[in-house]
């Protein structure tokens, strides 16, 4: 199903020009939500790059995901201000709560956690978001209710 879509992305770029690799990967991820093995093989043929090179580039950057199931992103700020306001405890708690929801198998994860350097809300730290919902002055205690609310709302 995805094959045609990936072809349509590739068509926008000239054949064999590896300088567009990152932008192709970005478009693939925007389209199907992650970097799949098939898409890497297709890109490899199109740009005449070995797949190992493509994985080398993709794994270097924070943005790219290889996990098939992830639908929702939890972002938490680890800027210096948030860190001073004990964001590390918050991160521990979010990791723990997400591990309970996601289970142990990596391929079954629905939520993924992104730790970002600054969300521009240094006076309201620690801050975290579940998709587009913002939580400011967040203490570890509010993580579970927030996640429960989100799960209920989205019927997961």
């Amino acid at each position, binding site marked *: 199903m995805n094959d045609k879509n990936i072809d349509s992305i590739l068509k926008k770029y000239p054949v064999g020009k590896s300088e567009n690799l990152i932008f192709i*990967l970005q478009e693939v991820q925007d389209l199907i939500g992650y970097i799949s093995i098939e898409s890497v093989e297709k890109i490899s043929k199109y740009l005449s790059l070995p797949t190992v090179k493509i994985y080398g580039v993709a794994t270097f950057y924070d943005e790219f995901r290889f996990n098939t199931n992830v639908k929702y992103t939890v972002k938490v700020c680890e800027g210096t201000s948030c860190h001073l306001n004990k964001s590390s405890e918050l991160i521990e708690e979010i990791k723990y709560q997400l591990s309970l929801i996601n289970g142990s198998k990596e391929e079954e994860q629905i939520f993924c956690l992104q730790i970002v350097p600054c969300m521009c*809300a240094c006076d309201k730290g620690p801050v975290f978001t579940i998709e587009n919902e913002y939580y400011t002055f967040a203490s570890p205690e509010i993580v579970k209710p927030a996640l429960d609310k989100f799960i209920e709302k989205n019927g997961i």
Partner: protein
Amino acid sequence: MSSIENDIKINIKNILKNSGECSNKEIADKLSYLKRESIPNAVITIGIGSSSIIAGAVDTLNAIKNYISTKNIKADVIETGNLGFCSEEPVIGVQLPGKNLVLFKRVDAKSVEFIFDAIFSNDIISNKVLCQVHNSLHHPWEDIPYMEDLPFFALQRRNLLRNCGFINPESIYEYIARGGYKSFVKSIINYPCTKVCEIIEESELRGRGGSGFLTGLKWKIALTSEANNKFVICNADESDPGAFTNIILLEGDPHRLIEGIAIASYATGADKAYIYIRSRHNLAYQRLNKAIQDAKELGLLGYDIFNSGVNINIIIKQSPGAYVCGEETALIASLEGKRGMPVTRPPYPAVKGFNGMPTVINNVETLANIPDIIDKGPAWFKNSGTFSSKGTKLFSLGGKVKNCGVVEVPMGISLKDIVFKIGEGVKDDNKFKALLIGGPSGYFVPEHKLNIEIDYEKLRDEGFSIGTGGLVVIDESGCIVEITKFFMEFTARESCGKCIPCREGTKIMSDILHSVTRKPVNGSGHETLERFKGVMQLEGLADVIKNTALCGLGKNAANPLVSSMKWFKEEYEEHIFDRKCYVNVCKQLRCFKIDAENCNGCNICFQKCPEKAIIGTVLQPHFIISNKCTGCGICYDNCKFSAIVVV
């Protein structure tokens, strides 16, 4: 509104070529409307940007729209960027015809109604008002402070930020009405490329990305390098923890950056320019995209601009995210589709950069300075600042400070003034401990050094550096060792792995700091020895990394460590010798004791302790063997009778 846009579109050349002095009265009136000098209806502005959205500005915006439609009020609602005063957000502005613009602070959805009820009957809710904005054409409000009177704004000199929070960032017409794109048109019509480089060189503008290299000189090198193609790259990959100066500019006044890039491209002879922006800054990306589209539509970008034969194209590329890509050679590698790893310099990018062609890489703030310098001349720019550092500088002020936000101050102001006057001191009246300048590869500044002036040379002489402009205030509740450890972990994680000193050195430093901030876990006895050995090596290790690392990330990685050991030695000694963190931040150094009176012998702590450090029998008070305790705190968290106390 649309007719105004059309009129400007048709007369664009006249407006921009005549340096804003428009002879046609009709057009002049329209520009004055866009400047909101004369408005027929009330205008309501609301700051929508990354920081205010987190504060709930979208809900406020909906409440405003709702209020206007239900009460049937004739008013224009305009979404602006953020003012920069983050701790008072969401900020909204109300301008009634003939009256000064009034700004309100912390306006949540609930307070919209009573603020508006009051102001539309010419009354003001005093506890919600922030300030009024001075304009000689309008009547002032009584008993409301002016913007310049507030401590947060009093010492600022807002040149780059002057439109932020006031204009609609998605309207090119508002930017043009306020004098925008004049400098660009002036440059391409009146000046040859070399002249523009000379003007910038004369202004002594220095790169705001941290290194402080003369921008005009960089441009000149690129201009004089022979090549078929040349490039300008705007580095908007801001990803320091705790720095958000660029994002305020990008979201609040994107056209200023576009104009700066256009002038830089013209001056260096580049026909292609890239903006390299972090992919998660969606709002800034959208606004920049819109800005470029609009500029193209008016013929300000593209081919043969204003029949001058100049071609300029600006392309936005989204950075996939790696801290090291802030380094210019790594940024180029990333744009070329490779892993973002730096290479050795020279050759500098201005000689051989993107695709092997001369490339000028400038920071957002540097480029945003350009239009004003062309417009008002280098002498104007040199008016503010110190002997060696001219102009203004943006800082993001955060941490435990009362007024948090992005500030623009003239060079030469002291750090003390920024923290205690603009920032109004430490939050909750706590004691000041240190100021962190320049993010994770920055420096700790102790209280007695705060008198130092912001100036590239003066800071360098004292062993500090401006960096990218993050200022974080640490109060007495912060632990310097722990924050240093946090930064070392950050750099170790973000190190690209190309050169050994940075890849291995940062890891070892962070490991040593780990062993300093926790108790020995395996009980083998070697850990204490390792810790002391490690601590003794820290300074030497820092020296080696500084001297041998390939790029700026590695060279500056040890800065927080070195400066914290210099100024806060006693805290290290407490951690290393007393094995105590007196501010109780380093959790794993805590010592626990069981209060025999409160302990009823429920036995839970005994079962939960992973180190078997708790002894006791059921229904009898328990006891912790302190030598075995690793300070994990599991017993403390699980005790339902508050019998376990920290000593």
